[in-house]
């Protein structure tokens, strides 16, 4: 485990007490509603807040007892909610600010490559106030990466952006996901964002860790609030099988069957993540012959759980070695006489690639 620690912080009525064990690679989302302590925990990891406890990153003690490594000595990158570019510096000098403060021998990123990765080449000579919100946030991300971090911390980098800017920046974040070989901790309160970007999830509630684990497991656990949210979703890991360039459709292999999705062509074998909302999964007992729903996967019911809504049930479906959740009415479950262990067919009314 590359990031581990126990951190405590008291601020007035709020008390944070979190134990963390984060994986070495990939994106960990700190997820919870506002006030749950996500940002505070992230600031504690960075050293911007001084909590009690210990913290170790890549085998280095960042905090232990009275030892507290100051922020500027921690090899981290931090992306704030607002881009917070230095207004007195052009984009180029904003980017170089952290870059030139890292000794040349310790730099692990290339300036031009990073600028290209975030698509900010054309902005280098501009002043921050002449950029759009999405552009600023891209510059801020590039600036953080150029400091050669061993841990990237991102505090809801898309929260202050409008929908268009979010759509603009998401592909860059996904690119980071595949390019970076360092752990990323990403604070968010948007489930869709987490389902698209995260691999590992830490669920926070009132300053405490409610649950932590791989994203696909936590999303479908009926004892956690995630699976009961209105936009609750499961994710399936899939690979591109074939493409139809004319119809802009691709076929995916996801363990137990084949999925068709509208998507521009992608090379065969490309791993893709498909998120399927619980309200979009329809259960039928026989394979539907006369339905407009294209995607149908054989599944087995692994759990039937109560939903906070009195008329709804949450059904967990096992598909190969993956899991989907479906929200159906109690009435429907009664009519179909659904029981745990029963083989059924899961029709996906909608599936989004992420």
């Amino acid at each position, binding site marked *: 485990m590359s990031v581990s620690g126990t951190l405590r912080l008291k601020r007035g009525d709020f008390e944070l007490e979190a134990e963390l064990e984060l994986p070495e690679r990939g994106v960990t989302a700190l997820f919870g509603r506002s006030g749950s302590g996500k940002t505070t925990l992230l600031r504690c990891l960075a050293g911007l807040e001084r909590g009690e406890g210990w913290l170790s990153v890549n085998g280095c003690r960042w905090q232990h007892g009275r030892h507290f490594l100051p922020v*500027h000595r921690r090899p981290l990158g931090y992306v704030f909610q607002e881009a917070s570019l*230095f*207004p007195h510096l052009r984009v180029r000098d904003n980017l170089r600010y952290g870059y030139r403060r890292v000794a040349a021998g310790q730099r692990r990123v290339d300036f031009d490559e990073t600028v290209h990765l975030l698509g900010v080449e054309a902005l280098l000579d501009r002043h921050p106030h002449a950029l759009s919100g999405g552009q600023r946030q891209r510059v801020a991300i590039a600036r953080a990466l150029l400091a050669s971090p061993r841990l990237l911390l991102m505090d809801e980098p898309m929260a202050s952006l409008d929908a268009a800017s979010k759509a603009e920046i998401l592909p860059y974040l996904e690119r980071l996901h595949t390019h970076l070989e360092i752990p990323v901790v990403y604070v968010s309160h948007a489930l869709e964002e987490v389902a698209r970007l995260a691999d590992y999830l830490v669920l926070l509630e009132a300053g405490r860790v409610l649950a932590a684990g791989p994203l696909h497991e936590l999303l479908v656990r009926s004892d956690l609030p995630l699976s009961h949210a209105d936009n609750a979703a499961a994710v399936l890991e899939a690979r591109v099988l074939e493409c139809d360039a004319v119809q802009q459709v691709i076929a995916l292999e996801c363990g137990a069957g084949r999925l068709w999705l509208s998507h521009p062509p992608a090379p065969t074998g490309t791993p893709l993540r498909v998120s399927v909302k619980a309200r979009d999964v329809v259960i039928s007992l026989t394979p539907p012959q006369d339905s407009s729903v294209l995607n149908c996967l054989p599944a087995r019911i692994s759990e039937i759980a109560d939903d906070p809504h009195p008329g709804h049930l949450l059904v967990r479906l096992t598909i190969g070695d993956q899991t989907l959740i479906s929200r159906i009415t109690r009435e429907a479950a009664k009519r179909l006489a659904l029981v745990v262990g029963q083989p059924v067919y899961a029709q996906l009314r909608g599936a989004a690639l992420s």
Partner: protein
Amino acid sequence: MLGLTSSDWEALRLTLRLALISTGLLLVLCLPLAWWLAHTQRRIKVVIEALVALPLVLPPTVIGFYLLILLGPRGVVGGTLERLGVGHLAFTFTGLVIGSMIYSLPFVVQPLQNAFQAMGRRPLEVAATLRAGPFDRLLSVVLPLSRQGLLTAAVLSFAHTLGEFGVLLMIGGGIPGQTQVASIAIYSHVEALDYASAHRLSLFLMLVAFTLLTCIYALNRRFKVVGVMP
């Protein structure tokens, strides 16, 4: 030259030196004070703020009077210095510097405090996450981002010292060549009923002050920076 006597020039030189030294020292010393005032949550802040603002409302003679007592041979500070063999500070240039610094204190602290408050902590946090240590952050972030506040503080302090009279007369005594600044020299000319000399020096001082301020405001207009982070 310009009909000014050599003692007039001496007084002007002294004024300029006093204004430069006290402004420079004030800027350095007020940086940490203004930073603390801008960010502290402690209740004692209001007391310190009131103390800093005191020279705005007190008659300069009051400040000068207490300074004279404090820095003189029998005062706490002057007496101690005397015993250490340094000599007391009444009627000395050092005394003048201390007096004009105290008198101009609010004119430096307040613009700096406002600049720091407008800047907030975020730029510093960002700089720290980008590997900048404390002193580095001061030079690369705090000073450039608060340069308007710094300029305002410097101009106000400098101009205020040029026009100072009461404090300097009390603490310095107006000894020609030593503590007689321009404003006191004008007063002496008037007392001696030498209105023509008073007039020349006054007009000269007015022109200098006006030119200086015009230059500085022109500079400020050109180098204005956005005060908030985008």
